[in-house]
């Protein structure tokens, strides 16, 4: 078993308030695991339970092969964490934080820290209360990454970063994963997850709706094909072809939404005088919008697997 994170029936309830229910997922070594969900879906609850800030109502999590509760100190030593709502010691400088964290972790390595400071232009010499949100966030990133942890747990890491820094940060995530380290990335932005993650779990109302690799999901995601004909074509001809989810005509144009192979569509289009054809690459947004909105009536997929019936 090569899983760096193994969650089994992980449940956290707060009295009557909703937490998370029966989460089951694995995160493989070297993966960038996008943990996606709307605000309030249970992303931070999951992370804070994984890291033993709070105890599960039932279920377990193993991180790096260790028990999240019993071995929490060892887990923390090998993990970098960026809180969702980062709060630093306002009167202290970034350097004060870096020094204290370095000593607390017993990590003498400073080259990574220095590289990150230069790369992100991190301001270390002013009290953090004088820094903008983006600059505080950079200090938080430094604290999470500087000891080269095997596992990074990042809760909405790009919040407050300007677009240029977001890109730089996403590049950093790629490098980290290439080095064989694992990233658990919570985000409410599908765009961000789609760009950097290798696999993804969608959480909604405290339950996992889908867990799969991005590649598998992309296969299920609809491709938008736009066809231009010499004369108007009846969309019903296309509507019943295999893979076609939707077909709309607009004069001589036909807009199709296709899942899986486009073979039938292409062959059928060839029967007409087809003047134009454009296809937009598979976009997870349509797929996820369905999950976001309808939640449980969408099929649940298993890692590496195909869609299954049921919830």
């Amino acid at each position, binding site marked *: 078993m090569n899983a760096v994170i193994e969650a089994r029936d992980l449940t956290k309830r707060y009295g009557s308030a909703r937490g998370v229910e029966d989460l089951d997922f694995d995160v493989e070594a070297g993966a960038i695991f996008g943990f996606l969900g709307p605000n309030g879906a249970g992303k931070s609850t999951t992370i804070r339970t994984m890291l033993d800030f709070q105890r599960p109502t039932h279920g377990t999590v193993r991180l790096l092969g260790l028990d999240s509760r019993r071995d929490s100190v060892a887990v923390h030593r090998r993990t970098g964490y960026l809180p969702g709502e980062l709060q630093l010691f306002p009167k202290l400088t970034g350097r004060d934080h870096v020094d204290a*964290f370095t000593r607390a972790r017993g990590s003498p390595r400073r080259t990574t820290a220095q590289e990150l400071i230069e790369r992100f232009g991190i301001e270390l010499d002013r009290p953090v209360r004088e820094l903008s949100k983006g600059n505080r966030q950079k200090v938080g990133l430094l604290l999470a990454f500087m000891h080269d942890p095997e596992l990074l747990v990042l809760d909405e890491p790009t919040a407050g970063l300007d677009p240029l820094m977001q890109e730089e940060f996403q590049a950093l995530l790629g490098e980290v994963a290439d080095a064989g380290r694992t990233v658990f990335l919570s985000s409410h932005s599908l765009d961000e997850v789609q760009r950097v993650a290798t696999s993804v779990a969608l959480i909604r109302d405290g339950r996992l709706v889908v867990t799969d690799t991005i590649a598998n999901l992309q296969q299920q995601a609809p491709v938008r094909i736009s066809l231009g004909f010499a004369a108007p074509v009846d969309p019903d001809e296309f509507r019943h072809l295999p893979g076609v989810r939707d077909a709309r005509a607009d004069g001589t144009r036909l807009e199709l939404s296709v899942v899986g192979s486009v073979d039938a569509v292409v062959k059928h289009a060839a029967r007409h005088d087809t003047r134009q054809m454009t296809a937009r690459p598979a976009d997870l947004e349509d797929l996820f919008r369905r999950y976001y909105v309808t939640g449980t009536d969408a099929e649940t997929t298993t890692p590496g697997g195909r869609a299954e019936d049921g919830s």
Partner: protein
Amino acid sequence: MGAEVAHLDLRSRRKSLLAYGVGLGLYTLVIVALYPAFKDSTSLDKIVTDSPGVAALFGISGSITSPDGWTNANLYANFLPLIVLLLTIGYGAAAVAGEEEAGRLDLVVSLPLSRRRILVEKTAVMIVQAGAVCVLTYGCMLAGRAFDLRLDAWDLATATFGVFLLAISFGCVALAIGAALGERGPALGITATIASAAYLLSSLGPVVSWLDSWRVLSPFYWAVGDNQLTSGLGWDGALVLGGITVAAVVVAMSAFERHDLRG
């Protein structure tokens, strides 16, 4: 690995600690320097003998023109414990509960340190703060020898240690309540209320006869209510105050160990 959490907490508080120290030190020096002007004032003693109840509210009993009476009335029976308790109860409530409310505890707990370790470091920070202020006060009191305020140096030292233990014990109670509830307000309020009641019990005991036998329930009695300036802090007093401290720390540890940090 050293005491990084303690270091972060102390660095965050160095200015306020310095202000505490300067303020209390100056106040102590003023009290000491004023002694020669009052030591022969029979009218001042008369106020106390005429209205012992009012005097007792300020923790005063007996002569206030004797060296120990003067020191008790102006410092050890009231002002000094009050100031050091403000420091320790304030820190005790802030150290875990306050940090949790501020959202900073997540980051600290994410370090490879056990919760027990974090709590020990925070207790150490409390000890350092109260210790620094008490040592400073003691130093300023010794300067009183130049102003005829002659107290036995050893008895004064143990009495000051009594104030220190008193402050630590209440500070640890605040720490324990904070660690259990995760809320700074109740930790501060409940502890301050207990401390106020304990203060009144100890200081009113000598003038309200039915209270007198209950004084032993007050930590103040064991620290400053039993002529500690002239007879020193007793072993029994040290044990009572030390016992409360240890019990509170044990409760705080077990509560913090179990506590779900709020996000």
